[in-house]
């Protein structure tokens, strides 16, 4: 009889403690979260997501267009140059997906507010020290996407959003 009592207590404790902590647990699975998180470029209020499907109807007519085949393999990387940035796409089946977005001048900024010509301090403030750096080349990773920033004399001279495919 007493045994039962203890078991009851144990189960009650089990249930109550789990329910009490339930909230934190259900908001869990960090790996899923990182997958939905990504660096996104926004131009004139319109999001241009990396690895999103590219179409001229969606992003407008480019000023210049270039295609670069790879050695040996089929399929072209296509580059669409707009006034302030350049979009490169890679083929996936019938579709073209956005591989990179490269800033051409300081008229555009990242969603977080970084432009060409900004100081290193600003970059550190916005993106922190977490990026991996190689000389003055910083790579920040968010989910499957990367933001590559190049500095020269502590000034940002190149910004590129990249979706690494391999």
């Amino acid at each position, binding site marked *: 009889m007493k045994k039962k009592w203890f078991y009851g207590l144990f189960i009650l404790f089990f249930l109550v403690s789990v329910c009490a902590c339930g909230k934190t647990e259900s908001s869990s699975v960090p790996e899923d979260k990182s997958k939905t998180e990504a660096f996104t470029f926004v131009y004139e209020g319109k999001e241009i997501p990396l690895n999103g499907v590219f179409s001229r109807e969606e992003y407008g007519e480019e000023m210049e267009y270039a295609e670069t085949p790879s050695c040996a393999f089929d399929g072209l990387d296509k*580059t669409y140059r707009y006034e302030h940035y350049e979009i490169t796409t890679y083929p996936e089946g019938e579709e073209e997906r956005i591989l990179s977005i490269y800033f051409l001048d300081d008229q555009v900024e990242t969603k977080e507010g970084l432009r060409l010509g900004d100081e290193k301090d600003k970059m550190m403030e916005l993106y922190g020290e977490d990026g991996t750096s190689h000389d003055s080349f910083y790579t920040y990773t968010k989910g499957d996407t990367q933001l590559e920033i190049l500095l*020269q004399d502590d000034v940002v001279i190149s910004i590129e959003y990249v979706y690494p495919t391999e």
Partner: protein
Amino acid sequence: MKRNIRVIGIVFLFVLSFFLLQHLVEPKYMTNLVEGSFTREYYQETEGHEVIFIGDCEVYANISPMVLYEEEGITSYVRGNSQQLLWQSYGILKETLKYETPKVVVFNVGAMRYGEPVSEAYNRLFFDGMKWSREKLETLSHSMTEKENLFYYLFPILRYHSRITELTKEDFTYFFKSKKITHNGFLINQEVKPVGTFPTERKLGKDDFDEICYKYLDQMRILCEEHGITFVLMKAPSLYPYWPDVYEQRIQEYADKYHLDYYNFKEKTEKIGIDYSQDTYDGGLHLNLSGATKLSTYFSHILKEKYQLKDGRKDDKIKEIYDKKLKLYREEIENR
């Protein structure tokens, strides 16, 4: 006793079917992705070359040994692969020197840009046809991307098993035999696509190549020195990917430091007579047959003059072999 023999027989049959199936699913690189057969093709002709070219697509698409022979009687072979990286160049040079000792080794410096393995797919094109040797193991250990491991190369079935449902006629036609793809390592491409625009040139975060590239360049140079071979550097006249001035400077410095000859054909396009509206098959990345013929003609004179190479046309034995090769070469050009 009888039973043991039966068991051994059955096990043997399974091992045999394992290898046959493995071979069936391996890509044959005969009509599709022919670049994968370059490494293997060399084994059919591992001697008799005075010049060996080493490098990426900038050699196999741009240098035609047949033209070098036609013009100056030079015997040569191009050991090029798509995206051949520096450690692979070193590996393939080391392997080549096991078979033969040429007088000159010409290395195309384009791959100095890349300091780390780029892609699994290009690794496969390079390694699938390579014979197992110490060189292969060493080169593999430097080349494998994160997701690869040695087992995928030891047992290609682990890599290619999914092809079992995608087999084509090629896999059966070329199960036991193979056909010749290149002409001493040169791949003919006669299409024409004039130069267009290229993506904006990216700014470089560095003003020098990665150390690892220098390491292997040094090793190639030293290896040639040890074998008494003249080590020559070249840069093919590709317009893209960009070859920034700072890279040019570094190579020049390297060549000066070690007294090497370095030919940057991009700066000689007018002299060579390259017309980028006619002589490229993909808008300025690689030369087509017409461009490659011009470049090879130009280079053949330099090679002949500077490195005292033998005129194979005057040697009956060589002439006989190369006449046959030339016939095939011309036939293929005409038939396309």
